[in-house]
């Protein structure tokens, strides 16, 4: 029995670090499913694009909503497909963007095939991009500490592989877009 949190619980814990609900941009598949499972909110943006694109989508959102906090939620398999986005984010220096990396070491939506990054030290990767103070483990964070960490920043969460896929989103692309559009204008 693993002592690691579930992906859904890790996402909920990361969102709870903020004093008010941030925009949450989740990758396709597991991250979107578990984000919705952690609590649907109009400020959730469920990305249906290629795996790993959530960090890039979140960067664009952060650029046009500079007064709002944005949290990108990526799996280890997904982020490995868009690792260059970390370099782009470092260059863009958004002061309101963070990344939650949930590492279960498998492609959960694809029969839990192991990811090629399963031996990788994501904390070291994040620190190489963002600096030692801007990349921290979720288990080491409190809301107070998180509030004092400069952005862009990255949170690494080791999570247990789920025994089953998350429930389906149950939202069409038009529903996701219109609901998010309204929330992003509020």
């Amino acid at each position: 029995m693993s002592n690691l949190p579930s992906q859904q619980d890790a996402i909920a814990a990361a969102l709870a670090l903020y004093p008010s609900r941030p925009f949450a941009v989740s990758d396709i598949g597991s991250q979107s499913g578990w984000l919705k499972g952690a609590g649907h909110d109009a400020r959730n943006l469920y990305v249906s694009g290629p795996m790993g694109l959530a960090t890039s989508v979140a960067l664009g959102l952060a650029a046009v909503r500079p007064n709002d906090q944005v949290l990108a939620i990526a799996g280890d398999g997904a982020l490995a497909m868009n690792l260059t986005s970390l370099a782009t984010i470092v260059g863009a220096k958004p002061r309101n963007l963070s990344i939650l990396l949930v590492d279960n070491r498998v492609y959960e939506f694809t029969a839990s095939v192991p990811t090629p990054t399963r031996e990788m030290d994501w904390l070291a990767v994040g620190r190489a991009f963002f600096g030692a103070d801007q990349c921290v483990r979720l288990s080491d964070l409190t809301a107070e500490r998180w509030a004092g960490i400069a952005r862009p920043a990255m949170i690494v969460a080791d999570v247990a592989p789920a025994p089953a896929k998350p429930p389906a989103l149950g939202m069409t692309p038009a529903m996701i877009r219109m609901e998010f559009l309204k929330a992003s204008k509020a």
Partner: protein
Amino acid sequence: MAQAATDDRLYRSIAAAKPKLVTGVPDGMLAQTIMLCAASDDFPYIACAREEECIGVASGAAMAGERAVVMVQNAGLLNSLGALATMGLRYGLPFVVIVTNRGALADPNGYDIEKREAFDAGVRPMARVFDFDAADFPDDLIPAAFKWAEAARKPVIIALEKRLGSGGGAAA
């Protein structure tokens, strides 16, 4: 920089559309425009490491209802078709993609030919492309592109190419 800006028609057309952000990966034909965008006080320019990221960045802005411009080479857009399909087309996001369509008759670098053929085979069937001479296009090109995209509720691609007998308008 302000003087240089008035000399770059593409930059002026982009600025006239009042985008909330511009993003891209350089191509020689876009280099001056990109440098002007990066220096602009009117909107942020996000320099991406890879073209597919640009589609993601533009999608994030468009999801919030804001105008975004992408600038890439045709080979870069070919790298991004999955993102264009599953974000731009699936969500109906009206951003503008400016593509330098290399490998034209007046632009016959050997390494560009297959890119152009792949652009014709892969991009045109899935998205609306409007073609222009890189050295001779209307001043209101980008504002007009946004109007079309917003009416169509989908991304639009503006393909710029070098044409024989034209002024060039390209740096490389």
